């Protein structure tokens, strides 16, 4: 699974034994992880971001214990929702039996999954990998969207007009008529748009714009 190569798993649990065991398990599956013994610590880690240990550019996943002293897992989850980080950082809840209803509710509200302790470990790791994949995909999408935005911002007013008509599928002649410029000028603009948007054909350009 290529997208998980540079991924990072965050473990937030107050029980050192569980943290270490999970880290050991993930390492056995070649997944790097980072442990936090409380939700507060993870929040302060997030606040230190984005440019140090973890950036949203890197796929990630959060293993979160529901019940902890101080800031509870659920409260941290609410913060993540507020920061709109759930897509780039999928959350898998680790729960005891008692917290299952809470976890179910959390999943309804956007958590990736929950896993009851003691867990079937490889199944858990599989879910982690799926979460990392989702994270990677989301980030890639974000990245391309960002690129597109950047490319679009580089276009001039006239080039944007030309592009809009090209995407609509109009031939150069009609574009020239509509914009009241010469066909030659249209061709120059069109070549520049293709160049700036990093596409080779009008079809490719149309796909790119439709996804937006």
């Amino acid at each position, binding site marked *: 699974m290529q997208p998980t190569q540079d991924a990072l798993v965050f473990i937030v649990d107050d029980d050192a034994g569980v943290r270490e*065991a999970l880290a050991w*398990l993930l390492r056995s599956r070649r997944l790097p992880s980072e442990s936090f013994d409380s939700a507060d610590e993870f929040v302060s880690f997030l606040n230190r971001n984005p440019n140090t240990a973890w950036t949203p550019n890197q796929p990630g996943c959060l293993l979160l214990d529901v019940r902890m002293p101080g800031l509870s897992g659920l409260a941290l989850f609410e913060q993540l929702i507020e920061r709109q980080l759930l897509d780039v950082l999928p959350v898998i809840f680790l729960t*005891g*039996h*008692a*917290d299952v209803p809470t976890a179910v509710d959390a999943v309804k*509200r956007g958590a990736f999954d929950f896993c009851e302790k*003691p867990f079937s470990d490889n199944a858990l790791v599989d879910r982690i990998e799926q979460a990392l994949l989702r994270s990677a995909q989301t980030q890639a999408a974000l990245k391309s969207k960002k690129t597109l935005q950047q490319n679009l911002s580089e276009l001039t007013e006239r080039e944007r007009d030309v592009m809009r008509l090209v995407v609509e599928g109009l031939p150069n002649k009609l574009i020239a008529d509509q914009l009241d410029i010469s066909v030659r000028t249209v061709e120059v603009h069109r070549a520049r748009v293709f160049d700036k948007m990093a596409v080779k054909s009008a079809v490719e350009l149309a796909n790119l714009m439709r996804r937006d």
Partner: protein
Amino acid sequence: MLVTLILSMFSVLLWLAGRYEASQVQTRLDRDASDATSDIRAALTRNAQTLQALQFAAADAPPWRQQASTVLRDHRELMRLEWRDSQLKTIQSVDTPYRAPVFKNFDRGVLQPEVAQACSIAKRQSSPAYSNSSYIPQSDGMGLEIMDVCLPVINDGQVTGYTLASYALNEILINQISPALLRSREISFTEADGTRLAVNGMQHRGSRLFTGVQLLDLPGHTMVLRVDSWRAAPDVFPNVLTALVMAMAMALVTVLIMLARDMRRRQQVELDLADALAFRKAMEDSLVTGLRARDNQGMITYVNPAFCEMVGFESKELLGHSMPAPYWPPEMIDEYGKRQALRLAGNLSSREGMESVFMRKNGERFAVLIFEAPLINAAGAQTGWMSAILDISEQRRVEEMSRASQERLQATARLATVGEMASLLSHELNQPLAAISSYATGSLNLLQDLGLHDKHLAQSLSSAIERIAQQAERAGKVIKSVHDFVRRRDQARESVSPKTLLDNVMPLVSLQARKLGVRVEVQCPADLPQVLCDRTMVEQVLLNLARNGMQAMNEDTPRKVLTLAVRRAASNATSRWLEFSVTDVGSGIDAQIAEKLFTPFFTTKSEGMGLGLSLCRTVVEQHGGLLSHTAHTPRGTVFSFTLPQS
């Protein structure tokens, strides 16, 4: 007014009595005067006859003189007898032997005109006639008023001479008036103009003079007989009768006044008594405590309305009813009878209340609390017993209900505690089990990657590690099954209004609040929606938080108030929430303690298990809510939790 009336009456009476007495005196005086007059007249007439007899013997001189002396000796009032001829020449004369001759120093001839006039009258009428009286001075310095009487001597129809007799007026008064008449009187002869001629009697001086006047009409001369009487006239108490009447009147008046005063006082007392009675009656009627009085034989002598209402009998059905009383349950009669006997013997002191069971008219039994006190009458003797009776059946019922509700909540609390312990145990055990399982799986993963040459060793190692994982999983399942068993009721969710939740815990909260002196305030808007929850467990949470809050307010808390409040909480798209909060104004929570607040088995109370808050959090989180606490300004703590709306 009355006094004035009585005084004037008394004066009138006095005046009347005085007047009556005066008139009596006057009448008697008049009568006496009249008697005296007739006495005198009779005496004079008698004297005239005696003198007449003297005339008939006038044939020879010596016998006349002898007879005349005899007459003078017999009649002291006569001063002198003269025999005169028809020409009024004195033939013979004799003076009274009792005093010196009256005319010794006086010329008898001076009186000749008066004598002549009297004699001419006598001659004309052929009967004695009297002359006017004349004052004749005497040798002893005193004078005598002398009146002459002339009797004609008639022989053969011819007046041949006259017999003249001289009366001393005062001697007439002395000799011819009976002494009885003279007592305390003065009798006098006066002329018509009031000139006193002769006086006999005492010279009294008194405050009042009564005068009886009688005309003494003699032929030829008229005089007035005057009787004067002096009275110490009318005194304030003129006589015994008046005094008696007076005394009686005074006694009557006094009695009347006293009676009036007494009446007024009695009226006042009666009024006061009526007031006191009305007050007492109102008091008895307004009592909710039943009152019953019994005499020493156990007969009911008094019941108040509250007692009648309590037992359902009319007061007339109860009054006069002896033992066994109609409100005694039949099965208790023996016991009550014994108790009554004991009380009558004086062996039962019951200033403190005594619990008993009475029966209403409809047969319903109810518990009462009886206070007995002896009834002491005005003489200080005990006449019976007064009992105050309180109907405690309602109190009993409330106690019973509160106890039942408390028991139910306590049972739930025990169950919840067991559940919480199971939950904690499972959590605490699951952690190491999860670690074991993770290590096992990780080890297996590594083992496969390692690719050991010795296939057999690899096989047995991996199977052993797999078993470790399996056993850990099995232990987890056992814990889960225990937990599920205890938490079977987790699914019992229902829609309950927040008010119902608060109302259910209020009895127990108030009970403890009263004990700790805490005022409980409830803020629960009526328009709140219902919440979806396991109601018994949520009640436990409220109860736990309320109890913690009250215990957090220790003795030096100024005004102990515990506030239970419900409000709508911030909601997101998927669910709506209600926030319950329990606010105390106690000592607050230290940061150190706050850190460990939800840790199981952590407690600040000597007898606490340290599961209360942990349980609360579990319950709240099971409902998907959050339990949190913040400091309350100016002091104290707010615990709040959220529950989903249904």
